[in-house]
């Protein structure tokens, strides 16, 4: 039996994060598989470099370390894209990661682009006067999509593929912005639950402060995922793991000790966000239709750029 890496502790000897036993992974094998995956994706596409948006959180932080380990830090461009309300602490954490890795980085403030849409200080933007009152949800989605647009632009200038940084937990409950933070050329951590992201982050050397802080989409000040969603990640991860990976029925979940109401709520989140995890359907009209009965690997002979 492989040794399960002990969860690192803070100065007071408390664990940095909670790692449910059944979710513990072999981090050496994970790094190995993910490293090969990253190199394979690039090779098959004819690229040698990567671009990612670095928020200062543990997900993008982990991916930065994984990419740097796989292809060398010089081949990774980290783009920091704060909005004016973004947490300065997040930006400081992102800068710490960039310094630690020694990779190229760039700061692109998205404030003017976002404010140009929704307006600012009572002055209407492109969206008209009513957009001054735009909801936090709309603003958050717009910010995520502006960041996506910046990354895909830098994909051209830096000559790198955009690497996804979304984890399995947020993907399954739909806590992502379609064509925003979930847009990417490939995703190395999309099959790891949040608890596993933290475990791997600790193993690869992501700064402890980044691992220990409360996860946040940072779409408005003091927002945290867990307060917004009303759940804790370790519990949510366990519900998803037993329900989806281990195929337990609702009744079996209750027998395992989960609250029925919680499981039902998670199920609704998963079902209602199915569309975010799939390629949009094309109306079937012709003899062969992409994704239906025209089925080719993304990377086939001739698919790599010259």
């Amino acid at each position, binding site marked *: 039996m492989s040794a399960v890496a002990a969860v690192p502790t803070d100065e007071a000897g408390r664990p940095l994060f909670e790692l449910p036993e059944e979710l513990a992974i072999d981090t050496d*094998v994970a790094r190995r*598989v993910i490293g090969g*995956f990253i190199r394979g994706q690039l090779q098959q596409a004819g690229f040698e470099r990567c671009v990612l948006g670095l928020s200062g959180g543990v997900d993008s932080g982990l991916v930065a370390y994984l990419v740097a380990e796989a292809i060398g830090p010089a081949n990774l461009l980290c783009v920091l894209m704060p909005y004016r309300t973004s947490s300065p602490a997040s930006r400081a954490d992102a800068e710490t990661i960039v310094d630690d890795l020694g990779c190229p980085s760039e700061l692109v403030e998205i404030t003017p682009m976002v404010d140009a849409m929704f307006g600012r200080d009572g002055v209407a933007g492109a969206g008209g006067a009513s957009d001054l009152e735009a909801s936090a949800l709309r603003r958050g989605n717009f910010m995520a999509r502006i960041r996506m647009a910046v990354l895909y632009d830098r994909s051209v200038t830096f000559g790198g593929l955009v690497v996804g940084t979304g984890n399995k937990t947020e993907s399954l409950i739909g806590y992502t912005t379609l064509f925003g933070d979930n847009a990417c050329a490939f995703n190395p951590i999309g099959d790891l639950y949040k608890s596993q992201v933290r475990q791997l982050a600790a193993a690869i050397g992501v700064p402890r402060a980044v691992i220990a802080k409360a996860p946040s989409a940072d779409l408005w000040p003091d927002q945290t995922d867990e307060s917004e969603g009303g759940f804790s990640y370790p519990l949510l991860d366990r519900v998803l793991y037993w329900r989806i990976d281990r195929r337990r029925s609702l009744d079996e979940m209750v027998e395992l000790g989960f609250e029925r109401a919680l499981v039902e709520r998670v199920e609704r989140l998963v079902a209602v966000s199915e569309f975010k995890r799939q390629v949009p359907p094309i109306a079937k009209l012709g003899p062969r239709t992409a994704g239906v009965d025209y089925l080719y*690997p993304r990377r086939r002979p001739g698919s790599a750029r010259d």
Partner: protein
Amino acid sequence: MVRIALAQVAPRLGALDDNIARHHELIAEGRRHGADLVVFPELGLTGYLLQDLAAEVAMRLDDPRLAELADATDGLSAIVSFVEESDDHRLFIAAALLEEGAIRHVHRKLFLPTYGLFDERRFFAPGDVLRATPSRLGAGLGIAVCEDFWHLGVPQLLALDGAQVLVNVSSSPGRDLAATNEAGLGTASSWRNLMRTYAQLTTSFVVFCNRVGVDESITFWGGSEVIGPSGQAVFSAPLFEEGLFVVDVALDEVRRERIGLPLLRDERLEWQLRELGRVVLERAGMAIDSTAEWGAQPGFDVAPSEPAGPEEPAGRGERASAPIPFRKPRP
């Protein structure tokens, strides 16, 4: 002593010419190492996740490119795997034994997994024939492809048909990183258990050649192995690393093991055939299921605990009550 070279390679998906060139290189390298047999993984000539590319990389057995590969086997043997197109245009996942310039044997994958992450039956036809084959190594070979070894009858039949060396060529996708897995990977742990068990129960060598590299989302884990007839590993290649691994195998261990542990001698094939024949008929509903309880579904001996319908099963009415394996003696 037989020297086996395991080509734990990462084929390029759909790039047939590149992969053929790589096979030629590795056969030549195997020859330099004095290998008697060079084994390549499942679909090593084409890559695994082909989907609609399968027809585009398919070769007929008279394909000149296969003939050239066979020509490269002067003085040694090689097992290569590719998409075979038959005369009636079925596509098979095939593994061929090439020896002394000829295709000596072709195995068409019998079991095409179409569940979980697998979708093979959509694109391929299953083979119907399983045969051990003689080889210039002085031993019978039993060649099978990946999923074939997840069916108990396959290694058993190959051993009974005359194989002393069972060869499984695979493209096994790695999955399950749970920290509790012995080999660090659930797939690797399962395969290792299978191969040791088969080697021991068939008292044969088991040669496993699994690919590495990445097709789309899937990472193949390598870990090629040679297991001796006592179930002990002779050689284990590293996980995920590409390479040509050379292993010496003492074939006389088969004799020693089979004399000391004569499991194959003691097999009772007539009994097995008889009972299998019974099960086949019973599962087809063509014979009374002699071991089933009242109301049990075909193939499942236990009746529902609370009968939902009438006492007599509707329609067939041919089930025996309680287990009555043999005719009752007359009082």
